[in-house]
């Protein structure tokens, strides 16, 4: 089973929840950090030896001796990564290239070839021999977050586990979609503020368009009558967990601690939560 932990609004507690869920279920779950623009799970799950793979993309290179400046490639490219610049000839803007390969295919004089550029990395670590953390990391200045997300998700598992948790990117755009698309169920973490609820609704709209089942975790909750709880009741959305609003939890997070350090009852609750989710998704216990 694959679960995506997403949110719409940033900073609602996605990483807090997914790190705690992985820690409490380390014997049966692995964690993949798909927030490749700003991966954070590794800040809370330290240790273990790391192996790193590079994520490459191919961008076009012009052979000026063959290029006759016909402009076919530039007019074909949907991302404005190629342009004819008068007497300077054909120019390539690698940071705009989406690696579709179309320019090379349309060039009538075979003047284009490809070179590799680094788009990001995928790091694997096994913490204390039991918990696998995979971290996708986008190169600063690179536009291709979905490419790195795909690479992180497809990275071969180091440990056999029945459940994979994706810590998804915030927002509701293509990065979010390319992660959630790969999951069987999406857990949306929200906070009981107007911003949180507004973006929760956007995320739900995106998930429903993908026809994915989802549920909600409310972080910084002030109880079952807070704004988010009432909203979910009205909308008939299942609430899996409420993480209470407590300054100790914020301070613990601020010092690099996990939710399990701040609340001793959380471990057992997160094991039950994963059992219940697995039953719901696959109709049986975690193998």
């Amino acid at each position, binding site marked *: 089973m694959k679960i995506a932990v997403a*949110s*719409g*609004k*940033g*900073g*609602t507690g996605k*990483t807090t929840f997914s790190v705690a869920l992985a820690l409490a279920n380390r014997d049966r779950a692995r964690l993949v950090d798909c*927030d490749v*623009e*700003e991966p*954070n799970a590794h*800040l*809370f799950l330290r240790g273990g030896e790391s192996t790193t793979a590079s994520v490459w993309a191919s961008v076009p290179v012009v052979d000026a001796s063959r290029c006759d400046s016909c402009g076919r490639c530039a007019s*074909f490219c*949907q*991302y404005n990564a190629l342009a004819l610049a008068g007497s300077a000839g054909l120019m390539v803007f690698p940071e705009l290239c*989406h*690696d*579709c*390969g*179309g320019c090379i*295919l*349309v060039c009538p004089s075979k003047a284009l070839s490809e070179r590799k550029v680094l788009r990001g990395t995928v790091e694997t670590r096994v913490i204390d021999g039991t918990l696998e953390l995979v971290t996708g990391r*986008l190169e*600063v*200045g690179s*536009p291709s*977050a979905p490419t790195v997300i*795909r690479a992180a998700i497809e990275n071969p598992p180091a440990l056999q586990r029945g459940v994979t948790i994706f810590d998804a*990117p*915030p*927002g*509701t*755009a*293509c*990065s*979010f*979609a*390319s992660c959630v*698309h790969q999951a069987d169920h999406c857990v949306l973490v929200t*906070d009981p*503020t*107007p*911003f949180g609820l*507004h*973006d929760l609704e*956007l*995320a739900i*709209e*995106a998930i429903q*368009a*993908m026809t994915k089942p989802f549920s909600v975790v409310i972080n910084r909750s002030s109880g079952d009558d807070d*704004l988010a709880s009432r909203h979910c009741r009205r909308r008939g959305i299942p609430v899996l967990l409420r993480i209470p609003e407590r300054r100790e939890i*914020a*301070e613990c*997070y*601020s*010092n*690099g601690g996990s939710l399990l350090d701040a609340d001793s009852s959380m471990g057992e609750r997160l094991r039950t939560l994963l059992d219940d989710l697995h039953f719901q998704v696959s109709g049986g216990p975690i193998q």
Partner: protein
Amino acid sequence: MSPREIVVLSGKGGTGKTSVTAAFATFAKKTVLADCDVDAANLHLLLTPCVTETGTFTGGHEASIRESDCTSCGLCGKLCRFGSVLEIDGWFGISNCEGCGVCVEFCPAKAIDWNPSITGSWMVSDSIAGTMVHARLRPGAENSGKLASLVRKLARDQAQAQGADVVLIDGPPGIGCPAIASLTGATAALVVTEPTPSGMHDMERILDLAGHFSVPARVLVNKWDLNPELTARIEALAQAKGCSVAQRLPYANEFTHSQMAALPIPLRFPGSELARRLEEIWKETLTWSMS
């Protein structure tokens, strides 16, 4: 003269970007606002915009196979580098199209349509803090960066038409396409962070991005009293990276209460210590952005 563009960013989400931007907007004179967090926009929740002009956003094209003309040769699947062509029982279909057009160009049966996809809308509004330009990306859609660029352009046009000196941009979290689109060519960036391991890590990456595009950056630590020691380290790191540091903001309930009241902090809590601090920070940021 083109207006100065000041962009508020954070790397990490939820550090208080939008609340800070909305507060600045209440102090700013001759300023047009732009919400470039197009896939999870929130500024409108604080500024009561009344839409005066709106339009659709065509992000790109989407390929779709006409079953009646498809010969099931499978070439589209071989050429697509995004894994978007799916084969089910000999039938081909496209899902999550990246809009590159390769399959359309090379389909031997010319069986693939290439339709412009309307993936969002933009709005120009009168708000309680002046003109604002905002947008809504269709949830799950591509091209958030293009839409953020469009919002910025429309805001610059508004500023020029009104003779405004400044465009104040509420940026998205992260360092990807929409963050790049919000940052490139801007006059200055204010990075709002918080004293947590994530806040520090993400700030470092957004400062690197600003450096990559040669945009001067200034760092503001929100909720500083949550961890004074880490706040000091964050500010030292910012300075080591050649950035200036703004006054700190405390962990304050006024942020949430203002959101609940759907008002910027200075209008919900006029005359408060926090509002006064925000006004100082805005004035200092403005002066700094001119130097």
